[in-house]
């Protein structure tokens, strides 16, 4: 064969080889980018959970809040002496029990009406928002707000008891006060978005089921552990309401979920009733009583009524 023909043959072979190599190289590059088609975790969430369209896409910010229990006897004794139509006792400096001399009619369930009434009748009462109602126990539970509601915090509560006519008979109040600190660590922080909170609730906990609907998401504060002095650090937290019934909480900075706290109200009711049995301690002051004889009577009345609430509460549960 002529050298010219051999060259042609080689040219043909190398051409085929080069075309093959180029295809191989292209194939490899594409291989790494192709995925086996499967529903993404977002799609899985959107497929199974309803109500995601109503979530806000806003980028929220909120600071951590450093707070401690309000010591009524030290800072608010004047105000407590002037609260209308009620006799009160502060036990352990931080827990206020108050009883109306004449029951006060309870407004409808509008939050603004509660606030208006509480503003007049209860010390810093406008800072509390409605949380839950236990009809069979005649109990309304309100939680304190520092910009946002503070969830499941025994030191930021308002328990209101009504009689069978729906009038307020007495209440128990605890309160947190923000510590004034000039500390950079308490600057506003970027929070995870509402969608991310629901995403974490769905994927990281086993609590949502297919078909569940997210009915409300709003911001609040949560604290699980306090210093023994009562000082606590409140973490911004998303409250996610599911099917208008079940409450879930997701830390709005770190994204972890908080444990369910189903017995919170009855546990704290128990604790408050125990407080009443210790009303002769050093840190107890009565307000608006005419003489000391009335003290035992007031405590006894409060004790009996709250005990009834507690018994009904346990039955309901």
């Amino acid at each position: 064969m002529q050298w010219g023909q051999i060259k042609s043959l080689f040219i043909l072979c190398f051409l085929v080889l080069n075309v093959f190599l180029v295809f191989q190289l292209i194939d490899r590059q594409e291989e790494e980018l192709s995925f086996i088609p499967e529903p993404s975790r977002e799609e899985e969430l959107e497929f199974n959970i309803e109500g995601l369209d109503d979530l806000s896409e806003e980028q929220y910010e909120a600071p951590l809040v450093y707070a401690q229990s309000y010591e009524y006897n030290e800072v608010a004794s004047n105000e407590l002496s002037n609260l209308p139509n009620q006799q009160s006792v502060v036990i352990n400096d931080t827990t206020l029990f108050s009883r109306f001399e004449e029951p006060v009619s309870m407004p409808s369930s509008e939050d603004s009406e509660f606030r208006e009434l509480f503003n007049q009748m209860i010390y810093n009462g406008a800072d509390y928002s409605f949380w839950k109602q236990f009809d069979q126990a005649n109990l309304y539970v309100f939680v304190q707000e520092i910009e946002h509601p503070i969830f499941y915090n025994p030191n930021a509560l308002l328990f209101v008891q009504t009689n069978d006519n729906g009038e307020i008979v007495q209440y128990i109040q605890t309160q947190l006060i923000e510590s004034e600190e000039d500390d950079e660590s308490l600057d506003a922080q970027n929070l995870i978005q509402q969608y991310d909170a629901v995403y974490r609730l769905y994927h990281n906990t086993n609590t949502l089921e297919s078909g569940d609907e997210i009915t409300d998401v709003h911001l609040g504060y949560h604290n699980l552990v306090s210093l023994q002095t009562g000082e606590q650090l409140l973490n911004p937290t998303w409250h996610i309401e599911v099917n208008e019934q079940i409450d879930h909480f997701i830390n709005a900075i770190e994204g972890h979920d908080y444990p369910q706290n189903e017995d919170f109200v009855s546990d704290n009711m128990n604790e408050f009733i125990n407080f009443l049995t210790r009303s002769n301690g050093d840190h107890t002051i009565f307000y608006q009583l005419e003489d000391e004889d009335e003290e035992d009577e007031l405590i006894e009345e409060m004790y009996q009524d709250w005990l009834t609430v507690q018994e009904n509460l346990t039955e309901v549960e």
Partner: protein
Amino acid sequence: MQTEHLKSVLLIALIVSSLLLTLALWNHQPDFEVVQTEDDLVDAQLEDGHRLTKRDVLSPTEFVFHTDQSLAPLALLNQEREQALFEQVQEISLYNFSVFNLNEEWWEDHDNRLEIMFPTTYSSAVIYDVFGIDADEQIPTASFNRIEIVLDHDGFQVVFRNDEDERVIGASMQNYSDEVEELEAFMSEEEVVSLDTIESSRGQTIYLPNEFDRDVLLFSYTEIPSEPFQSVLFTNPSVVRSGYTTEGYTNLVDGTRELIIQPEQISFTNLTNEQQSEEHELTHYELLDQVQNFINTHNGFAFEEPFHYFVSEVENNPNSSVVEYSMSYEGIPIFYNQEIASMSVAWHNQEVYQYERPLISLVDYRGVGRKASEVPSSEDVIDILESENYRGSAIYDVTLGYRVREQDGSQGQVYELVPSWYVKGVHGWHPLIIPSEYTGGDQRAMGAN
């Protein structure tokens, strides 16, 4: 001629390009960014801490040599030498793993064997780590707390067994006769003591040395700084607030996590991680692996040789997943006092839930303080275990170890290691409760647990 010239140029170009393309294919690497793992981001570490592999922390507590030349089983008099023996055992190459049943009678008929006992039960997956076995080798799934090296049997040369049942894993040894010779040579060079025996609640034999060193050893210590733990355990250490507990210990909180710093130990709890989710259920091996990584990430094993840490308990059930490491001195376990001698990690949902660890590390050996004459002999221990005090209690094993504590009158400057008997029951290892008639009125030595 012109065409031929062009063809030559074309051919050379094609040859060169095919070479280049081949090279490109050969060296082609995926061009993805490497995602930083969470471990890389954690930079806080203990300066004087160590990282340990699983092989480092899976250490036995007892070695028993059964031989037809001696009526009673034997152990090494010098317990430190057990470590060297175990290192020799770890070098053995194993293959051909299989699972079958062997009952107690079989063991009684086989007199020539080396029995190596571990403080707790492990899953068979750790055999890969302990013996450095290739991942290709299949090891059946089972659990074990003893390794038996059978010195005169052709079939089962190494057996991994559990005192809870008869199911065992057998394996063959490379160079069986050479390895056996080496082990026998090792034993023949060492001083040995004979062992007394008592039956465990599971019908197995428990061995107690009838001769042991009663020296109480003295040590100075160094403090482990607590500051790095704030960075390790809190996501945002700058928001952490501190106060004091009613006992006067420093207490740090960030609203969801709590760290209590005591003089000798710290205890941390992440309250959001209390409940275990079924989705995150781990195998025994995964639990051990993740906890080990967690401690290694912050160089958490703080000790000075010849002290060391070993895994003394692995609890893995739906309510609680805990790995506990205890300290050892020259391979001898120190189960108490736990504040100084043990680290424990409760691991829920692939994250730490609770972490307790000592804040001191024993360092310089300061000599022998005294003889612990109050430590009962093996005969007395058997009497105590058979007495009313232990009736109805589960006794799975008994071992001789050390108990560490502050030396009386040293104003916290010196710690002592006192030889102590430990009993393994339902809740792990606890000091033997010694009735006053055995201590000669000196109850200080080992109180009730």
